[in-house]
């Protein structure tokens, strides 16, 4: 018998495990054969097939060129700019989103109305158009930006062309657009917190701002974090639209090289490889953050990819004990956000 039974000191007589002939699935083998042929064709055309271009024989996808440019300086510069735009855009988006969500839930009808109109506009128009607007529209409409008393004397003025440089336009455009989406995520998080929390804080004499900051938002985080991870991945990809504002991010960087060398497909592949690498890292991060925040809310943790892989190799699902062992010190008793029992 198993070690557990011995440890428990039980002598329950247990019949042997059932050994039955499993059901055969011939259809699966047909499907496997068809898919194998298709995959082989794809691998062949993508990796091994060679075509004559100019007077040299190259792989069809131009992997040699991809290799030449994958770590080229302008491309790396573009990757860095993409990451910068993602970080700044998300920062503006998160702060703006919290502000808009709080406004939307305000008892003041003017504030909630303003928030609604903001959402209506920024979710209702394409990001590409918004970016173009921030880049060229502002300096077209207001060549001179001035600081002063409304309708009164002006204190100082700047040229919009100097102020709205590409990077600033892109950050504002991406951030303001993101704020509209983050607002809805934050609002859902705030609404997920029990009303009793608000009442308890009120009865202790805490005002609305203090209650929001100390009681409501910390609890809303469990609901806010997972979709925010999605938003970060979306933002990373959306930075490619900043090429319209002439920002030298990854897409723009590869485009310049492609335009000069005519290596259009290899350069797009370079961009794809970098985008995939960055989103993969973010996805892994997101998976573990979500897993972390699910603690206490779900009874049994979903297996990590490594646990799934080992389960596959063993051809049977891992037992809870194995999952616990795999997770090791990674599974302390959860005492962060709410146990979820009540």
């Amino acid at each position, binding site marked *: 018998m198993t070690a557990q039974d011995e440890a428990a000191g039980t002598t329950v007589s247990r019949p042997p495990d059932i050994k039955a002939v499993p059901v055969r699935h011939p259809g699966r083998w047909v499907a496997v054969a068809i898919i194998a042929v298709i995959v082989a064709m794809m691998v062949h055309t993508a990796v091994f097939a060679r075509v004559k271009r100019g007077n040299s024989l190259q792989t069809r996808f131009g992997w040699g060129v991809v290799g030449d440019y994958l770590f080229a300086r302008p491309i790396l510069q573009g990757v860095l700019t993409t990451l910068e735009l993602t970080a700044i855009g998300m920062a503006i988006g998160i702060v703006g989103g919290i502000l808009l969500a709080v406004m939307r839930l305000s008892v003041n009808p003017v504030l909630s109305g303003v928030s609604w109109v903001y959402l209506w506009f920024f979710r209702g128009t394409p990001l590409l158009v918004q970016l173009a607007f921030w880049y060229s529209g502002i300096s077209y409409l207001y060549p001179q930006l001035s600081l002063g008393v409304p309708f009164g004397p002006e204190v100082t003025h700047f040229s919009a062309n100097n102020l709205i440089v590409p990077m600033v336009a892109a950050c504002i455009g991406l951030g303001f657009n993101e704020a509209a989406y983050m607002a809805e995520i934050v609002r859902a998080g705030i609404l997920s917190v029990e009303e*009793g929390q608000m009442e308890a804080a009120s009865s202790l004499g805490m005002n609305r701002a203090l209650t929001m900051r100390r009681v409501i938002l910390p609890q809303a985080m469990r609901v806010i974090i997972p979709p925010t991870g999605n938003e970060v991945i979306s933002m990373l990809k959306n930075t490619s639209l900043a090429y319209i504002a002439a920002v030298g991010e990854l897409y723009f960087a590869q485009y310049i090289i492609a335009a000069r060398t005519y290596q259009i497909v290899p350069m797009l592949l370079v961009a794809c490889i970098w985008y995939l690498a960055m989103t993969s890292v973010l996805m892994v991060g997101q998976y573990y953050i979500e897993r972390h925040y699910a603690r206490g809310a779900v009874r049994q943790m979903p297996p990590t990819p490594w646990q799934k892989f080992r389960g596959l190799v063993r051809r049977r699902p891992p037992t809870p004990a194995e999952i616990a062992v795999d997770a090791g010190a990674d599974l302390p008793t959860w005492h962060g956000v709410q146990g979820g029992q009540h």
Partner: protein
Amino acid sequence: MTGTPMVLAENIHKSFGALHVLRGIDLRVEPGQVMVLVGPSGSGKTTFLRCINHLEKINAGRLSVDGELVGYRERGGRLHEMRDSEVCRKRAEIGMVFQHFNLFPHMTALQNIMEAPTRVKKVRKDEVRAAAQRLLAQVGLSDRADHYPSQLSGGQKQRVAIARALAMNPKLMLFDEPTSALDPELVGEVLDVMKQLARDGMTMVVVTHEMGFAREVGDEVVFMDGGLVVESGNPREVLTNPQHERTKAFLSKVL
């Protein structure tokens, strides 16, 4: 006794839309008194309790706590709504304990108790910590200071909630069915804390279904039904020898 009553309610009315929940409540709670509100659900006990610290606004009548109107200021014969900051200041003087505890789940027991004194009253943190530890000892939970609410039993949660309310040094404590969400075997530990509080002279208004508590601790029991006070008086008399049919019918079911 003719001093300022702690709570004075005169002809209180409250409606939620078309629902007329309170239909003329007159009550008087003296300082140091324990008043127990009983009655069937929907009778308006909880609503009345929530009016006392202005979690609900009354529609008509006069309601004052310690001689001052709740939620309004009287100037030149007219009522002026209080600003939010004033309402908060008034609420800080009234402790409230809820049926579902409403502890902050992301804070430990000690942090729950310390939150309001440090953030609202802005008392120095080491002073607050010492006071919070004394309060935890008072409710018998010194060894649970660093536990999160999810790691506490229902009775322990409610005792922390009482300590949290007491940390603001309230002059009045409101209890809204404090034991209704508890397993029967955990009710006693919460009632014990409340009894001790009553013996220490705290003014309390308690909505409860615990008739034993009403009889033992209550100075006055008030039976409410349909948004009105049906009968009130000494708990021993009202609970053992009710005068009204409605009270008799209710008590025959709960006792």
